[in-house]
């Protein structure tokens, strides 16, 4: 028979006490027992990063952590990033503003990893961002936009990336640099 073990955790600021199966991962418990389905399930071997959550003072692949190991811990999932009033965290808003979300399935994990990176390195370089998020696969491959979004909320980062992207688009002769202003141009 399945052995049930009581645990106490704080999830997104809320204390919870409940019993978990000894063999269930933190990912399963978050999704199935607590209905926090923002944390995603993909590879189940700690490679894709879709299940990334914050446990105490570090991020973990919740598919590789048994729920009982989280006993006594403090957990933050993607649902806990926004303020209690629903106000998006700056990193969430930046992901929207910079087009970092496409299909969206990897995004909860990307956000948790980006949030952790910015706690450790408030002003990361592009290389540090790419290395910091290397454990989070995005098959839409929005890596450039994700990097730009992280740069935009970095300390002292007054959206340098927007300028960089606009410059790149201008060099490419692409429409992006002019995209913000040329809506009327279609009438010609």
């Amino acid at each position, binding site marked *: 028979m*399945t052995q049930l073990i009581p645990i106490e955790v704080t999830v997104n600021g809320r204390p919870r006490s409940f019993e978990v199966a000894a063999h269930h991962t933190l990912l399963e418990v978050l*999704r199935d027992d607590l*209905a*926090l*389905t923002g944390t*995603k*399930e*993909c*590879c189940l*071997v700690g*490679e*894709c990063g*879709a299940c990334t959550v914050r446990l105490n003072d570090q991020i973990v692949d919740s598919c590789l952590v048994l729920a009982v190991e989280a006993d006594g811990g403090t957990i933050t*999932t*993607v*649902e806990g*990033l*926004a303020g209690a009033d629903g106000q*998006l965290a700056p990193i*969430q808003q930046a992901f*929207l503003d910079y*087009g970092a*979300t*496409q*299909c*969206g*399935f*990897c*995004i909860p994990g990307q956000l948790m990893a980006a949030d952790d990176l910015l706690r450790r390195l408030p002003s990361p370089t592009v290389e540090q*961002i*790419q*290395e910091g*998020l*290397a454990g*989070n*696969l*995005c*098959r*839409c*491959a*929005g*890596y*450039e*936009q994700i*990097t730009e979004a992280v740069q935009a909320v970095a300390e002292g980062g007054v959206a340098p990336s927007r300028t960089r992207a606009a410059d*790149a*688009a201008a*060099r*490419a002769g*692409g*429409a*992006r640099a002019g*995209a*913000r*202003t*040329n*809506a009327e*141009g*279609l*009438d010609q």
Partner: protein
Amino acid sequence: MTAIADRVGGSPNRVGGIGRVTGAQAYVADIRPTGVLEARLVTLEVAHARIISIDTTEAARVPGCRAILTADDLPQPMPRFGPQFTDRPVIATGETKYHGEPVALVVADTKDAAEEAAGRVAVEYEELPAVVTVAGALDPAAPLVQDPALRPDDPLAGSNVLREHRVGWGDVDAAAADLIVENRYFFPMVTQFAIEPHAFMAAPDGDGIRVWSSIQHPNWLQRVIAGVLRLPLSKVRVIAPDPGGGFGGKQHAKLEPLVAFAALRTGRPVRLVLTLEQTFQAVRRAACEVHVRTGFRSDATLVFQDIAADYLIGAYADIADRVVGKGSYPACGPYNVPAARILARSVLSHTTPSTAFRGFGYPQVNWGVESNLDEGARALGIDRLELRLRNLANKGDAFIPFDTPADGEWSQSVRKAAELIGWDTPLPEGHGRGIAVGIKSGPTTGLSYSTVRLLADGSVVVFAGTSDMGQGARTVLAQIAAQELGAPLDWVTVVMGDTAVVPYDQQTSASRSTVLMGNAVLGACRSIQAQLRAMAARLHDLDQSQITVDRGVVRLPDRELSVVEVLKPGLGRLGGELIGNGEARKEAEPGHPLGGAPAFFEFNCTAIEATVDEATGDVTLLKHVTVSDVGRSINPLQVRMQDEGAAIMGLGHTLMEHYIYDDAGRIRNLGAIDYRIPTSMDLPLEMVSGTIENADGPGPYGAKGMSEGALLCTAPAVAAAVREASGAVIRDLPLTPERVWRAIQERDATGQEA
């Protein structure tokens, strides 16, 4: 974000984006109806086997086990389905034909119980020889993959060739060439690897059934379910939440029919969420062996192309044979070629059924064809860019006879890519450059309906059966409606993914939705504009001819009114709404080999600069340029995202991705550890995505489809750069460090490029 224009040509934040950053976006696996049962597949650790018996006694004893379905529990003869051939059984019957084909489905109260019961299903089977390569499948002594009884009138039914596709013009054999270059190229099996593993759910729904699926084509699925369950379409409701990535792998039905039978059997909702490993066993791209013979004149003008491509498809056809036919059709590329002979074969094997995957069969053949052009240029001593420009079709050229003529100023894309990579600038020591082009035929037929409702306050609801799997269709369609009806973007709601609510759409594929569904939405909005004109005429006692409605402004002879200023008095005290219907149709052309000429071509030019670490074989991409002819960017940021995303996906099959099969037909690198896709550490040091926009597409405002272009020619461009940088000659993808290193050793051993 008032600074961001939210109309056509602007890049507003993604419509539906907030749920994607808060975790609220519900994918299929996140939806949990009351009383839902969990299902698990029972599969065998072999590819091809005769099933002798399945004993479910022990499994049924597991507490919480509710049902076990095997072939014996389904209607006889076994219902089959498939978009091209009705060959795929709902569950393996009598034998398995590929590694991972389910032989039983276990349904239980919990995942744990389902898992345990699935492990207790005892299957007695006899392993049979499997074919897993083109050569193996074509061996006259090879076991037959297909069941000849399913296609009794087909002369190929007794072979492992499902179909042959022959295209040609001119006389290849009589063509006089100064140089003939002949080579063989290989493109391996790769998988879509959407980060969302496929998920399916079904529940009895009154006298019908409701099916949830992470599917790109909900209306196709509705038809399949109605067919196997013998229900009218109106009794099958398909809910298709936004897929977490599709890339073609989620176009057609896979395990939904099986889950539907399980729901009817148990009378409860049943869900099946595949593991990533099972998704590898469910969908992949066809491998391809391409033999290319190209004839050139000494001035590098093309004389002929003689192309034979054997695509290794899987155990059931799925849409794979269409992939082969359509992908190989433009195999000669965007060039004027006087004589061509293309033979493409769909070769069946005991492997995962291959299906649609971004690029739809073209990247495989283009890997060989573009690489062979470089071989010709090298032999003739002519610049590779110049060779391409010399042969490129001009706009309007019937470069494929009887097909859609060249529909873009393609040389603009090539010249721009060349400029961006600095083709004419001196090449630093140890660096190499490559340039390649690709075209993909857009949709050859299509049908999209849209209903748009202009509500009494001027807000708008758009109904569109397109699936937004990340490409951003919801945003683009909302932008079109906002543009035409004058509503702010956040007053536009787009309803998708429910066949009981949303009108028919044929499919979300072939980069069609901006063009076809975009035109349907545009048509619906224009219908509402006509109603507004009539309303304004009535209100202001004018003739309709005196009034125009343009982009949300109603122009009377003496003044301009907003839509709402006409709508509110026009609707009157009872309120109500205006409803517009739009339709975009691309009819079939029975005489055309593809069933219709493409609505547009996706054209891309990719240019690469790379270095190679000779000690390790590691390739560094210094710069990756892609230029796509998109007609008109309705949302430039989304265009860039799709273009870059395709380019990086192309780097996956170019540099690292491939299935490894053993002789018994088992995939040895299932899952994320042993099958690598590009991460943020695998990006080019600099990536530039450019567009050519001449508003010459068939979609709204001159848009063409895009989002596949940038992976059509990634591999030949990268390989060319690697060769120039290192002398390594590689004709088998992917260009792993080991392969590159070995090619360098071979170069050194022979004293010349191999």
